[in-house]
């Protein structure tokens, strides 16, 4: 057991290298798509604003990146007119 640990400790550089390679591959990819989420957020907000006036906080856009597939989650809350009249919102 002790011997095994000694080996493992010796080999920390390869682990560092692998972790970096995986991480940087991911970070480079997300860097090349300049903040997709905030662009989507802005455009969705503009489309909604044509019809209903909602506060920025009522729109949630998030992206979950997976290995083979990513999911885009859009959560829009539209307050009832009685609760937030058009003129008051925003």
């Amino acid at each position, binding site marked *: 057991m002790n011997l095994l640990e000694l080996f493992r*400790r010796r*080999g*920390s*550089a390869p682990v*560092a290298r692998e972790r*970096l390679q995986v991480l*940087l591959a991911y*970070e480079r990819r997300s*860097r090349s798509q300049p903040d997709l989420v905030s662009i989507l957020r802005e455009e969705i907000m503009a489309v909604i604003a044509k019809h209903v006036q909602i506060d920025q906080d009522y729109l949630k856009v998030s992206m979950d990146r997976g290995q083979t597939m990513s999911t885009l989650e859009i959560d829009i809350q539209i307050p009832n007119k009685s609760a937030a009249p058009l003129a008051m919102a925003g």
Partner: protein
Amino acid sequence: MGKVVVVTSGKGGVGKTTSTAALGAAVAKTGKKVALVDFDVGLRNLDLIMGAERRVVFDLVNVIQGSAKLSQALIRDKRVETLFLLPASQTRDKDALTEEGVGEVIERLRSVFDYVFCDSPAGIERGAQLAMRFADEAVIVTNPEVSSVRDSDRIIGLLDARTMKAEQGEQIAKHVLVTRYDAGRAARGEMLNIDDVLEILSTPLLGIIPESQDVLRASNLGSPVTLSEPLNSAARAYIDAAKRLEGEDLPVVVPFERKGFLDRLLGRRAA
């Protein structure tokens, strides 16, 4: 027209300022006119490393704001007469540097000096981006350590996106300078080795600076290591890196600290 070289890293404490001083002094010693510009507004240190901290009267911000002439703010080195320092200001005002102002100062320096070294602050914020903005070349200082390599990768991304050259569709020449390298530990697999770092960053190597007590001693004394102890291993590595920066085709050898038999036996570091 001189060349503008930004010395950058993303991560702090990896040796940007030390490397700026050492490389700049090495180039200046060959007779080239060299200006070292400290961009770390609020946390200047290049003056201290150069041993010029008591000679600072005006600084970069004064020049940009027009309260001092460039010639008044430049401090001539006492050891190498072609070496000059433009210190950063100690102001806490983050917006003291304007892109326009920096651009003007850099252009004027470029017309007088052969090399302008811009010592970047750590981080990827405004100060770091202004330091790299007008550069022709970049030296990315990297320690063989995960966080430093990751930050270097980030900085490389910024160099390719946010510099004037990149925006004009040109390539900024990038070089990795690996500092604090311990060949023994790398050979034992305890530290990322040079090939790992270069493969991950896929950027050419400017040099390898060994971990060395001499670098700290040089800082303590306020002298670039390439001037105070030009024969020691770190200084020689910097001098070679400076030659490569000037276009000389020198093979990179992995340096190591010479150790006595007893040091080796006891696993002690050479002092």
